[in-house]
């Protein structure tokens, strides 16, 4: 188990190193550097050169990358925003809190609603509720979240005036973005829970359990649920990563001051240090969640930890 954990963590570190290097190099390749963004076209060539050397932009690429990495890892220093001059580390940490609240709320709602719907659907496959859930799943996976968001703003914000549609602050602000974000996730969760339960339901050990006269509560609680839970845990972990790193569409629509909103704004402003910082923070979170999923898997399924060594 320990070796498994160490192996996974080393793998995660390698992935993070690769991601940071690629992102750094790619953003360095972008036309125009920080000095351009900062002073624009008004500066003379000498001034530009002075600024570049003061920012360390005249050093070779690999040296700059290793400098960046050392500062980031050992001092938590991700550089400064070209636009506001604020520390990127503080900026992304501030914004991440909002994204975290939104993503965790949405994921909880999605798991509760989707899990329940999937389980009830799987209890009677091809029944009317199953067909309803399956129809909803098909729709939910195709609906653009930004469209749902617009329609909800239209109905609940503009016509009924029940809920605020922009910004953050009160719990009410959280409702619409949560629903928009949770809807497709609930569809995926429902689909997986249903498929997974049906899969396990047909297994021999479940038939054996029934045959020896166990009641439905024991069959579900002891045999069906634990065994069908694994793929769902994987999905939750991976999807939560997607939400934490990919909620920028919803954040942009609802003016939610999260990490995604920050990233999109930084791309518009060509504020590359902020882009880099936000991408790296998201990468760290996503990779960490992946490792967590693997560890939970290994804990639930003793076969994994052993075979992987």
């Amino acid at each position, binding site marked *: 188990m320990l070796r498994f954990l160490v192996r996974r963590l080393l793998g995660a570190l390698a*992935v993070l190193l*690769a991601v940071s290097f690629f992102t750094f190099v790619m953003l360095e390749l972008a036309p125009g550097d920080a000095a351009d963004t900062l002073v624009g076209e008004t500066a003379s060539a000498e001034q530009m050169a002075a600024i570049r050397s003061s920012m360390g932009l005249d050093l070779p690429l690999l040296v700059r990358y290793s400098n960046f990495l050392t500062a980031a890892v050992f001092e938590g220093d991700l550089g400064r925003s070209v636009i506001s001059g604020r520390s990127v580390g503080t900026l992304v940490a501030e914004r991440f809190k909002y994204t975290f609240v939104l993503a965790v709320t949405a994921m909880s709602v999605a798991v509760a609603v989707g899990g329940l719907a999937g389980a009830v659907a799987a209890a009677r496959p091809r029944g009317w509720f199953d067909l309803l859930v399956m129809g909803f799943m098909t729709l939910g996976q195709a609906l*653009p979240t930004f*469209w749902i968001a617009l329609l909800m703003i239209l109905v609940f914000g503009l016509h009924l005036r029940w809920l605020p549609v922009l910004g953050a602050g009160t719990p009410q602000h959280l409702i619409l973005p949560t629903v928009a974000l949770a809807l497709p996730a609930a569809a995926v969760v429902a689909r997986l829970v249903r498929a*997974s339960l049906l899969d396990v339901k047909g297994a021999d050990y479940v038939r054996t359990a029934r045959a020896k006269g166990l009641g439905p509560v024991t069959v579900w609680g002891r045999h069906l649920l634990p065994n069908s839970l694994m793929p769902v845990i994987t999905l939750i972990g991976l999807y939560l990563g997607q939400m934490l790193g990919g909620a920028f*569409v919803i954040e942009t629509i609802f003016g939610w001051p999260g990490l995604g909103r920050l990233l999109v704004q930084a791309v518009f402003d060509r504020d590359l240090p902020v882009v880099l910082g936000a991408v790296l923070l*998201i990468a760290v979170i996503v990779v960490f969640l992946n490792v967590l999923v693997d560890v939970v898997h290994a804990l639930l399924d003793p076969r994994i930890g052993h075979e992987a060594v």
Partner: protein
Amino acid sequence: MTVRIEPGLHQSKQAHAPLRRALRRARTRQRRGLMWALQRLNLTVGGLLIGTLLLTALFAPLLAVAPPDAIAPASRFQPPGLAHPFGTDGLGRDLFSRVVYGARTALQMAVPAVMIGSFSGIILGLLAGYYCGPLDQILSRIMDAWLALPGLLLAIVFVALLGPSLQTTVIALGLVGIPGYYRMVRNGTLSTREMLYVEAARTMGLGDGRILLRHILPNLTSPLVVLITLRLGTVILAGGALSFIGLGAQPPTPEWGALLASGRDSMDRAWWVAFFPGMAITASVMGFNLLGDGLRDLLAPEMAQDHRTHAGADEDECGS
């Protein structure tokens, strides 16, 4: 399908027996055809939706009520009606025509993006799975890292690099798709390379390129067709999202996501601008999803289990 020989009928004294039999067979076949379509409801509905999308894109100039960019200040924010089926936007442009032309934009975005992704992913996957060794090690690690990040996040990094435009969206979404194809083709190649017929082809002295393209790749066609179909839907959705937040196709390109974004500020006066383009996206994405699911059940039922295995782990390791 199977012709059942019923012993009684041979000696039948009824003169019309063969005709009746033919009729009955025709009727069963018809009913079977209907049953087939119903049982494969996702394939049927998906096919119809995608057929509509393709026809709309193909015949856009015929379907459109007006040129998609024709500005008519006199008829701003007309509600949906006979003259303008989906109403008009803030510049008096006919929304129906813009949505119809949007079908072209959607395909112009999705098809090349999927081509970039599938082509690169297939080539790299074939090479990694066939030659194994350090090449496979390096490529697989890179793809793992690639896959670890949310797809739209990578796309945004590319947009940050190249600046927002339709071309950037195509390239970004294409590159984002590579690991999916890579993984499927690499694992597929790995499990076929030791098969007897591949061995035979090698013994016959065929070159590696020929073996890969003529003997290994054809075996992966079914799952690839399914993956490509599903990816087309994903790309339309992701492209719409990018355009919606302003990082994809730029106005005045008639792109569904951009159309929705343009309807955002006038939602209180003109709900239709923020409504109909969303219908188009939903229908197209659902069409590709259903078609992909249907094709999977038909061509590659073993894929149905894929979503249940851990996305991060490679099942087979490269042996000697």
